[in-house]
């Protein structure tokens, strides 16, 4: 009954995160630079035209709408956090996740999602051409645990930071992460000198 309220991007986000949540009460970190931009834009157009605003669209236009709906529908009582991430969403999401794991959270789901932007925004931000959602199930390393390893490294002093593009200029920031996950191996700059390395044993 609630599926009808989900935007196409929210459906993509749910489709990727749901199997990882796997009916557990697990913390969520949901990261999206622009959030539900289409919903927000249509509300702004209605407001400009003096039309009454759709209560559903209004309620679901907030940045934590996807995190909120996901936690309600999956009956998650653990913390659910929504981030924008600004220029460097991968850095923001991964640092937040690393912080939570370092503080003793044993596992969490980290989600990134974006959708094509309304044309009006294209003078200040590049738009992804398609809806894209990536979900990661992250846990602190346990001996013999299956799955890939992820290492986040901080900027090294004296070394020039690897160049990394702002998500406003490179909207498909999830793609290097997806390729590394598919290949089971990869290294990528995530912003401001931070680097993510995906590797096997």
């Amino acid at each position, binding site marked *: *009954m609630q*599926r*009808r*309220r989900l935007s196409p991007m929210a459906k993509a986000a749910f489709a990727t995160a749901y199997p990882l949540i796997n009916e557990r009460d697990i913390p969520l970190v949901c990261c999206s630079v622009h959030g539900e931009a289409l919903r927000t834009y249509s509300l702004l157009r209605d407001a400009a035209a003096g039309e*009454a605003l*759709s*209560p*559903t669209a209004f*309620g679901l236009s907030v940045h934590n709408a996807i995190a909120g709906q996901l936690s309600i529908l999956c009956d998650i009582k653990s913390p659910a956090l929504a981030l924008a991430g600004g220029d460097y969403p991968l850095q923001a999401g991964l640092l937040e996740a690393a912080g939570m794991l370092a503080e003793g959270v044993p596992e969490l789901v980290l989600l990134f999602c974006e959708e094509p932007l309304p044309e009006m925004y294209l003078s200040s931000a590049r738009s992804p051409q398609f809806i894209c959602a990536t979900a990661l199930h992250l846990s602190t390393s346990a001996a013999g645990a299956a799955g890939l390893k992820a290492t986040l490294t901080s900027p090294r002093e004296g070394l020039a930071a690897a160049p990394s593009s702002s998500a406003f200029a490179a909207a498909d920031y999830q793609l290097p992460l997806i390729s590394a996950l598919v290949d089971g191996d990869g290294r990528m700059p995530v912003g401001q000198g931070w680097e993510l390395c995906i590797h096997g044993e």
Partner: protein
Amino acid sequence: MSELVEEIKTLIIDVLNLEDITPEEIQADEALFGEGLGLDSIDALELGLALQKKYNISIDAESETTKTHFASVSNLAKFVADSRG
């Protein structure tokens, strides 16, 4: 009146984006909220807005009778017919 009932059923499905439900499956006298169709308070706001737009009627959110008007499709049809006068 039965035409209005059918129109309101279609309106409910369209504005609330009800998936996999046809107008025939909505009983005119069944409860819209909680039980029956299982709509919630956000749906009530959305539906109220759609009715105001489509039929140019005003709905008093504070009024107790509004609750009765929204109980079922047939009540809504009566309310719309009376309000349009």
